[in-house]
């Protein structure tokens, strides 16, 4: 009996432990496992690469560094030694994080901010919707609503500003030719891979300075967060023995100066007027009707104004506004036509016959509200490939700039097509079409995902030719996911991919002639 009781107690104790322990709890974020960046090629001649906006590095001010024998430099070295004498585990974690690369980490931070701000405003009591205001960014709804076109533009400005800032930095790096602290003083340890790249001004600081300055404009409610990240990154460079403080100060200053050129462009690129006016929204309907088509209406309740209908007027990076119009594809199938009905029937089929595999594809590519948008998704895909390539910071920036300028420009082209034709979504044509993901609040033709993905695949296939059809396959999957989700007709996705590929080629041509090689 006693033995029985013992087993009983053992059972009572062990069963719950076994039971509760059987639930697996372990989240590993793969971006935390990236290795420290050790560029295979420091791209020492990047000062000769063609920048996006700036005309010459010499238009910016970078004072000559202190001599390495100066008391100021010696004091800077002592600051490093002070940190290295007692690094905490939290400080080592900061080194581990940032050593993966400045451009990479700032791109991730940007994706995070886009996802955070990718929330459509909640309606007013009367059923109208408030609009975010850049002049009063903290009031609800906070500025910005980082929807896909806004986000594509943000990624482009941040990446292009980082790239130009690094090109300028390389000019001064070569001019001043200052060695890294661990070269000048054997008492300084290099806690990250050593580099022969001159260290004044710091490339990390240049990237941080440019990112902070342009992101202040794009995400004005996040300045404290952004500044804190930059301060952490500067601390990392010192703790790791990679830069002295003077190199960071000069770098941040140069980055901010270059970013100001981009900020000036951003303030006048017409994005601020992309929301349009109620009169302009009505005109869109008239345009569609005059073509004999059924005009788009919002399927949200209450009906929401169309998303950034005048984003089509934003000034692109890779071509002029006339080219946007020239690339506009032929009209969609007219509502009610035989071709239209055939395509609508196909959408209804996918709505009514979902498979688990197709649903997974829809979810994988949903990139809807609360996400980093399709452009962010393609940035994540690119970043995962780039980390394998051991690029220099400047090549990282250049490649992301090519990708993201194509993303912004394809958003402009896609929005031009959407709002020029202003046609209805499948569910508007047939309410029986229930969807496997949210219907974006803008017209159907052509598919945004397909445009973004077509452009991204063209750029990434150029940059990484050894990946074969990997990126075009992904682009096809992304675009099909919109048909499977029952929110797009087949012609939306097919034509969207074509426009995307064309816009992507503009970035490829730029890449072929910017002096950076592949």
């Amino acid at each position, binding site marked *: 009996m006693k033995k029985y009781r013992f087993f009983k107690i053992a059972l009572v104790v062990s069963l719950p432990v076994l039971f509760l322990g059987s*639930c697996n709890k372990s*989240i590993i*974020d793969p971006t935390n496992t990236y290795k420290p960046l050790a560029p295979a090629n420091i791209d020492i001649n990047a000062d000769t690469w063609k920048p996006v906006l700036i005309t010459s590095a010499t238009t910016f001010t970078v004072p000559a560094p202190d001599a390495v024998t100066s008391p100021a430099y010696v004091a800077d070295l002592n600051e490093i030694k002070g940190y290295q004498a007692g690094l905490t585990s939290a400080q080592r974690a900061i080194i581990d994080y940032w050593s993966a690369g400045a451009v990479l980490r700032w791109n991730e931070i940007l994706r995070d901010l886009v996802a955070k701000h990718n929330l459509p405003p*909640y309606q007013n009591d009367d059923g109208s919707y408030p609009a975010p205001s850049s002049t009063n960014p903290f009031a609800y709804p906070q500025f910005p609503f980082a929807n896909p076109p806004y986000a594509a533009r943000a990624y482009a400005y941040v990446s292009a500003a980082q790239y130009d800032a690094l090109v300028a930095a390389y000019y001064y790096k070569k001019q001043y030719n200052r060695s890294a602290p661990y070269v000048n003083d054997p008492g300084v340890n290099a806690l990250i891979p050593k580099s022969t790249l001159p260290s004044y001004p710091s490339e990390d600081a240049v990237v941080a300075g440019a990112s902070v300055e342009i992101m202040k404009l794009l995400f004005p409610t996040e300045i404290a967060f952004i500044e804190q990240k930059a301060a952490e990154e500067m601390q990392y460079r010192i703790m790791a023995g990679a830069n002295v403080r003077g190199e960071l100060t000069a770098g941040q200053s140069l980055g901010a100066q270059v970013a100001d050129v981009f900020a000036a462009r951003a303030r006048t690129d017409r994005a601020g007027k992309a929301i349009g006016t109620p009169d302009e929204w009505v005109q869109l309907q008239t345009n569609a009707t005059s073509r004999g088509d059924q005009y788009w209406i919002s399927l949200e309740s209450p009906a929401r104004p169309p998303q950034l209908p005048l984003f089509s007027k934003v000034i692109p990076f890779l071509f002029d506004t006339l080219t946007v119009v020239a690339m506009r594809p032929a009209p969609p199938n007219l509502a009610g036509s035989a071709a239209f009905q055939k395509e609508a029937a196909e959408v209804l089929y996918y709505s009514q016959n979902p498979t*688990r595999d197709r649903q997974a594809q829809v*979810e994988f590519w949903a990139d*809807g509200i609360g996400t980093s948008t399709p452009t962010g998704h393609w940035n994540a895909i690119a970043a995962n490939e780039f980390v394998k390539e051991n690029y220099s910071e400047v090549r990282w920036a250049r490649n992301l700039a090519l990708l993201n300028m194509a993303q912004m420009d394809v958003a402009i082209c896609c929005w031009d097509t959407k709002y020029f034709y202003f046609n209805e979504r499948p569910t508007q044509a047939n309410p029986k079409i229930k969807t496997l993901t949210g219907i974006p609040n803008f017209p159907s033709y052509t598919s945004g995902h397909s445009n973004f993905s077509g452009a991204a695949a063209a750029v990434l296939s150029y940059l990484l030719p050894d990946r074969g059809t990997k990126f075009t396959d992904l682009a096809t999957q992304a675009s099909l996911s919109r048909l499977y989700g029952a929110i797009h007709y087949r012609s939306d996705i097919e034509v969207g991919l074509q426009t995307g590929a064309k816009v992507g080629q503009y970035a490829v041509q730029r890449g072929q002639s910017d002096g950076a090689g592949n």
Partner: protein
Amino acid sequence: MLLCCFLLVTRSTRAQTTTDALMIPQNFYCAGAMYTTNYWTNYWEGTFKRDNGNIGKLTTNTYSFFGNYGITNKLDVLFNAPYVTTNASAGTLKGQHGLQDLTLSLKWLPYQTKIGSSVLGAYAILTGSTPLSNYEADFQPMSIGLHSQWASIRALVNYRLDRFFLAASGEYIRRGDINIDRNSYYTTHLIYGNRVDIPNGNNWLISSGYRSIHFNAEATLQQTTSLGGFDIRKNDMPFPSNTMNWTMAGVMFKYSFDRVSGLELTAGGDYVLKGRNVGQATTIFGGVLYLFNFSKNKPKS
């Protein structure tokens, strides 16, 4: 765009459940089928209560089969297998359906004592749950569940005086991670990976009522709390790892037929009084149970 909220699927097996003090005798088997409908139009995003024109009324119907077998007079094993459908009355999101999660429980009465004419019993209930199909969890609020494996332990004390009872219990629920079809998602920051940490939880429940051979009636009040997770932001979509808390009151009735020995009917309902990141749901259920006697000495109920 649209948004909304999700309510954890409520218990469907109510007679001799994992939350009451009813035991089935050794070698008896109780089989049952239950229909449950659960609906809400209002929900909470964090503490902000709202409705949503893109959801309208969200209805979840559950058709479950369950059973309870007496291994001994003091140890029961229970299972429950639900088929679930969801539907939104407005908006465009497609309703989902499928076999949801199998739960298996062991219910044990280790201690029981008489105090005068009353009886005090202490119970321990272990439950494990695993999804029965590969349903989509990351399509809230249309998804039929969270697709999480979980295990729980509940301690229950029941005091019975004649035909009246009072019971109180507490449960700790440990939920396993899930894999979703995306490879990044935002909680309070962007996370890269398809693995989602579903918060653990607890549940406190008190119930009181009347139990005779033929008729049971009871009222319950319970609080379910997520130990972790995050709030749905204003106008965001719900996500499987949201904090989901709710206070719920309910009633349950059971009737056993005299003429058809072993046949029982049960019905009841619940209402969410207060919640966080859940719908303010009303639940109504009805079911039929049949008691089989596999013991050697047949007559005896």
